[in-house]
Every structure is written in structure tokens, then in C-alpha cells.
């Protein structure tokens, strides 16, 4: 037991190296993850944006936080897919019969998700810059944005892990992400929530995406963030902890 603990980080490093190779050898996963959010950004800015009243003159600035969340929500479905394939192919069984910490294999996937989503986020921000996105945020604000996005990615990745570990089919492993991708639409991501009917407004105001979007938007535009950032962090950590516990339970059940 001691030996498996001592080697935990080097074992996890090997697992991370493995799944990062998967990412770089099938760049299409990153491209696919980027294309839909970029297309949506183009659509909203150049087609619908003219008719949307947000009270700001730069709609790309308004839109970007929500677009990033959509990209992450679709990006994590690949984690579910990769986990599902590993469970199915028997390679997890091989790892589990070796003297290595069992969770190393799972953490390898989680860290890979974090890195690949970070790559997608950077690509989308670069495209946004070309489209006229500008930010007055300083280094600290950017770090805070990176931190919130990382926490959001981790939280959703553990949800993806539950799906990947307990799905019966490949389609099932990926399907859970559709509602997550949809969530930003019923939030302050595209239009101010004030314009929504009361019931939708109440939902939008009290779901995690709105507080996360508002916090990131305030940080990027150099506005005071107020309570939003704490609400956003509380949502992300809460989802992270609950999802982690359920994912670990699913993992232990699958791997005795």
C-alpha cells in the first residue's frame, strides 16, 4: 500500500501523458469543441446581436463569458467518452490489477480535461479578440477568471466522470452534456435576465451559470464583482464536491 502511495504522482503523470497524447493525436476533439461556440459567437454578434439590448456597446464583451461556459460544457463530454471507452476496452482492468493507486487512472483523465478545456478556452478568446473583444482587466482579474473557469471545468468534469463510469453505451456517456450546454441560454449569458418572463427570470437568476457569467463579465470589464464571485465559487465548489463523491462511488462500484 505504501508503495502505491509513494508513486501516486508519478503514476498519475504517466496516465496524464497517455490521455494528453490522445488529445494531441485527435485534435478534432479540440476543434469540434471550439467550432460550435465560435459559430454561436458569430451568429449572436453579427446576426442577432443588433436586435439584443444589453446596455453595452460591445456585445462580444457581453457574450464571451457565456460562450466560454458553453465550450467547457461541451468539452467535458469527451472526458465521459474517454472514460467510458477505457472501462469498456479493459485497459482499466489492466491498470487495476497492477500495483498502482486506483484513483491515478481517474485523475489522469480529470487533469487532461482541465488542460484540453484550457486550450479550447484560449482559442475562443483569441477568436473573440479578432471579433473585437477588449478587456481592461489586470493580471489579478485574469487570474481570477482563470480560477473560476478551472473550478467550473473541474466541477463539470466530475459530472462527466459519473456519466462515463455509469453509462451503458457510448451515446449515453455523451448525452448528459446537452442540458449543460443548454443552461447558459436560460441565464444572463446572451440577454439580460430582466427581459425574461417572471418564472424564467427567477430560474435564470438562481441557477449557477448566471452568477458565474456575471462574475467573469465584471472581472473582464474591470467592474466591481460584488457578491457574484462568491455565489459563483460556492456553486462550483458545491457541484464539484457532490459530483466527486458520486463519481468516486461509481468508480469503486465498477472497480470493486
Amino acid at each position: 500500500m505504501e508503495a502505491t502511495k509513494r508513486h501516486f504522482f508519478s503514476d498519475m503523470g504517466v496516465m496524464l501523458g497517455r490521455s494528453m497524447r490522445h488529445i494531441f493525436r485527435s485534435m478534432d476533439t479540440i476543434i469540434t469543441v471550439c467550432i460550435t461556440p465560435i459559430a454561436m459567437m458569430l451568429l449572436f454578434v453579427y446576426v442577432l446581436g443588433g436586435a439584443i439590448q444589453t446596455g453595452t456597446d460591445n456585445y462580444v464583451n457581453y457574450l464571451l463569458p457565456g460562450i466560454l461556459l458553453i465550450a467547457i460544457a461541451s468539452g467535458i463530454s469527451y472526458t465521459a467518452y474517454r472514460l467510458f471507452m477505457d472501462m469498456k476496452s479493459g485497459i482499466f482492468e489492466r491498470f487495476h490489477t497492477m500495483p498502482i493507486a486506483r484513483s491515478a487512472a481517474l485523475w489522469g483523465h480529470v487533469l487532461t480535461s482541465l488542460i484540453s478545456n484550457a486550450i479550447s478556452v484560449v482559442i475562443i478568446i483569441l477568436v473573440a479578440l479578432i471579433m473585437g473583444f477588449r478587456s481592461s482587466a489586470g493580471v489579478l482579474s485574469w487570474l481570477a477568471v482563470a480560477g473560476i473557469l478551472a473550478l467550473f471545468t473541474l466541477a463539470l468534469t466530475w459530472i462527466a466522470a459519473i456519466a462515463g463510469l455509469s453509462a451503458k453505451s457510448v451515446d449515453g456517456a455523451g448525452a448528459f452534456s446537452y442540458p449543460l450546454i443548454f443552461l447558459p441560454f436560460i441565464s444572463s449569458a446572451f440577454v439580460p435576465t430582466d427581459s425574461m418572463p417572471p418564472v424564467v427570470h427567477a430560474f435564470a437568476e438562481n441557477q449557477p451559470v448566471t452568477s458565474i457569467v456575471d462574475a467573469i463579465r465584471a472581472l473582464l470589464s474591470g467592474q466591481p464583482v460584488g457578491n457574484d464571485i462568491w455565489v459563483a465559487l460556492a456553486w462550483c465548489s458545491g457541484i464539484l464536491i457532490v459530483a466527486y463523491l458520486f463519481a468516486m462511488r461509481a468508480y469503486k462500484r465498477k472497480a470493486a
Partner: protein
Amino acid sequence: MEKAIQVKGLQKSYKKLHVLKGVDFEVEKGSIFALLGSNGTGKTTIVKILTTLLKQDGGTAAVNGFDVAAKPGNVRQSISLTGQFAAVDEILTGRENIIMIARLRHLANPHQAADDLLKRFSLTEAADRRVSTYSGGMRRRLDIAMSLVGKPQLIFLDEPTTGLDPEGRIEVWKVVKELAGGGTTIFLTTQYLEEAEQLANQIAILHEGKIITNGTLDELKKLFPPVKAEYVEKQPTLEEIFLTIIGKKEEK
């Protein structure tokens, strides 16, 4: 003789399905042990319990002297599993697959280990190609090569030739014989009776949750009814022995 595996009264149920109903057997160090049985009799369940993937409901199992339930960490140090489906990474190359396992086994020189195993399994030429381009036989060879990294004392092969063409099957048989020649203990499950006949020193037949017979091929042949007067005297094949024994049990 020292025992590589000792199993006593092993029980396992999946919900209401009682798969193992008190399985007993022992495997001697350095031998090739074949576990025979039809599909769904619980061969893979036994493999999973012995390789620490699954916990038994009752009975005991020890691998290289360590109890699988109490000391799974020690068991994992000395075994490796080649499961029913080739557990290789399709996106990595053959070489990267072996290096990955060598790193996880903390070998001093993973690249050297990969070179040696690739050569031994005639995969040197294909070493830097992605595994997704490999044939079934090559994949299985790589799978077994990955299981040999770090020279485990006991290797589990769960239906290693299922789905292989005859050539691939003969390749695997050759590897198994070489391994056993080098002193490695082999635990083999198969539904091909010829495979057990070709390879095993000791054969056990699992039927309806129990080991109904266990012995060398010659001992099993003695269980077969005496040869009847026929025009041509015919030695029973293992297949006939198998079917006869199962038939008898079902009559009771």
C-alpha cells in the same frame, strides 16, 4: 511443491444468480493450469477474484501466499492479467504501450524493456505504428507483451485466443509454452478444448458453479469409459471427455 494459487470454497453471486458455489482448486508454481467451462459458467469471475478486480462472497483465495481479499496490494505485485478483450491503448503505438506499463511498474529502463519485448514478440517493425492499425493477432501479442513487463511470477490469460484466427492462436500457444518453460506460472481459461489439451499440465472443468474434475490430461482420460470394441480403436479426445463428464453430472 509450492502453490501459486490456493482456492477454497469460493462463492460468488450476482444478485440472484449464484455463479460460484464453492470452488476448490490449487495451482502449482511453474505449471500451466487450464480452467475449462462453457460460456457463462464463471471462469472470468474466478479470474477477476484472483486478480483483485472483484471480491468473493465466501471462501478464500490466495495468490503466491497472499490472501486476495486481505492483501490485494501484495497480490498485484506478482501477477498480471491479460483479459478477454485486448487491453491495449489503440491511439498509442505499440512501443508507447509497453513503455507506459514499464513506467507504471517503475522499471529502471522502460525503453530497454520495450525494445526487448517488441523483439521477442516480433513487433519491432510495427513498434512505432498506432495499435489501431494492428491485426487481431498482433494486438493480442502486444497485449501479452504488456503483461510480461516486469516479469510477473503468475500470469492470468482469460480466453487469450478467442476471436483469433488459427495462425494467431498458434502464435499465442508458442508464447505460453515459452513462458512456462521459463518458470512462469500460467492460469489459462478457455472454451477451446484443444487449447487446454495442447498447453496445460493440469486441467480443471468448471460446471454449474463447481469444479467437477481436476487433473492431468492422462488422469482425465482415465475417467472416460473403457474403450469399446470397434473396428478402429479410437482415443477419446478431450472434447469427448468434457461432454461425457458434463452429461453424467446432469443425469444425477
